[in-house]
């Protein structure tokens, strides 16, 4: 019996552990077996290739990581010609393609192109990018935009459609409801918080963009609070991420309502974080004689 089996919308996963878009690469499979993971998520691709931001792009803070990679990626064509064939050959686990666009039409065009390709199990829609049609406000910031985007994409694909939500909004539950009503079949949360760092010696920002994405340990309580909020608001399956390192961290998210989790920054302090998480979770569930699915969403209030 595989106590770790779970599902994320239309996907059955042999392991609840996946990887955070943009943080992971198949190079890690030199260090551990891919079947530790339930699915593989690509870094976000865009229609046109993106050079990304100038260096310095990363900086480590007391309890997390700042990054301003700027979505460096080979573009849709480059992905199809170089990456996808390699991934299709190499992967035994479901492949989730993360992509983003600067208009609803661009999102649709990318999806339509990917629909023609085999070996893709689902899409992760990164809505943290500026919307050129709405004065550059991030797509994910407005429920009506998210709803329209989800409608447009859901009507064109029967693959798993994951909307990845940003924590940098006033009410993430409203965004989750909009994505769900539009047809998202699952929700990934959270993307990075805003963060910055300055060198106190020189007054210079530590990164080429003052405002970065902030990830890692520091995010865990935020991600957990937002996972709980979203789980209270919608029944859509949740892929939780943000600061997860250990199997105990993962359990917190399952209790809060997550069906699966993803590791990102954790790989940079422990390349075997996923392996340890997998083993710890397995041992714990065996000891308790429980299946993962029995814990999901079962958080309760404390005794005083």
């Amino acid at each position, binding site marked *: 019996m595989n106590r770790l089996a779970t599902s994320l919308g239309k996907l059955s996963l042999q392991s609840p552990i996946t990887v955070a878009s943009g943080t992971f690469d198949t190079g890690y499979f030199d260090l551990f077996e891919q079947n530790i993971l339930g699915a593989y998520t690509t870094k976000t691709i865009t229609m046109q290739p993106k050079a990304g931001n100038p260096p310095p*792009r990363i900086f480590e803070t007391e309890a997390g990581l700042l990054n301003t990679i700027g979505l460096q990626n080979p573009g849709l064509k480059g992905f199809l010609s170089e990456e996808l064939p390699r991934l299709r050959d190499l992967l035994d686990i479901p492949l989730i393609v993360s992509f983003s666009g600067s208009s609803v039409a661009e999102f649709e065009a990318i999806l339509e192109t990917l629909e023609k390709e085999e070996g893709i199990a689902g899409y992760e829609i990164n809505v943290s990018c500026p919307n050129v049609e709405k004065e550059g406000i991030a797509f994910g910031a407005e429920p009506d935009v998210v709803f329209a985007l989800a409608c447009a994409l859901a009507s064109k694909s029967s693959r798993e459609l994951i909307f990845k939500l940003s924590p940098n909004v006033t009410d993430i539950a409203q965004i989750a409801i909009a994505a769900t009503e539009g047809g998202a079949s699952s929700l990934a949360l959270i993307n990075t918080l805003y963060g910055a760092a300055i060198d106190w010696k020189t007054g210079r920002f530590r990164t080429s963009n003052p405002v970065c994405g902030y990830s890692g340990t520091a995010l865990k309580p935020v991600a957990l609070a937002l996972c709980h909020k979203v789980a209270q608001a919608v029944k859509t399956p949740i892929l939780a991420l943000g600061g997860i390192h250990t199997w105990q961290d993962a359990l917190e998210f399952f209790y809060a309502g997550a069906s699966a989790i993803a590791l990102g920054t954790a790989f940079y302090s422990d390349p075997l974080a996923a392996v340890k998480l997998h083993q710890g979770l397995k041992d714990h569930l065996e000891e308790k004689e429980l299946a993962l699915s029995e814990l999901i969403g079962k958080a309760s209030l404390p005794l005083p």
Partner: protein
Amino acid sequence: MPRFLELKVADCKRLNADYFELWLEAPSLAPLCKPGMFFELKAQTAAQERKLFKPISVAGVLNDRISFIIKAIGPGTRALAEVQPGETLFALGPLGNDFPLVEGKNVLLVSGGVGWPPLGFLSDLLKERNKITHIHGGAGASDIFPCDRAYTVDGSAGEKGLVTQDLPQILTDQNIDIIYSCGPLPMIGAVQKIAPKIPHFASLEAYMACGLGACHGCVVPVGESYLRVCADGPVFNAADIRWEEI
């Protein structure tokens, strides 16, 4: 193919106020190490547990052991400085590409500060079949390692000034065919500016997260794009770097 291991510390000794030398037992990895390659290292302390690994160049290999020469400048390198022989630490490597080797050439090595170790290692491999001149600079006396000419910013050892200050002279006097450099980007840029026509391979430093090419955090502007120091480097052809952006 890099490996992630807990390696035993064979020795860890202070060289001066700032630098220490670390020797790791790594029978399976030592034979794979070439000059330019580096490891991601991390001490096994509670405070370092959630921290990034620190990229450190291979400074040499002796039988089953790999050596590193490290400047303790922040929490990560200070934690490494405190490991004791017999303890283990986390090591991911060997990572990155290596310097192309040459024969029968007049070779100039230019290093700055913690850029010395990979060139020291390279020098060992090149010296039998080439004529080597190694110039090295640092902020102060503690930054100085064995070389042919040393420079310090504060004048506390060698000549006062920058490592590049006598470069035009040296290039002609020694009739240099090829340059290898490692150090801060401005130093490498200065070398490239002075000697734009001489083949020049530079090992670059960058802030790193994954060390494996996954995060795209450690890039430098090279050719048409941003290349990753960890996976596309750390050794680049200095002529390919877009110096105007640096």
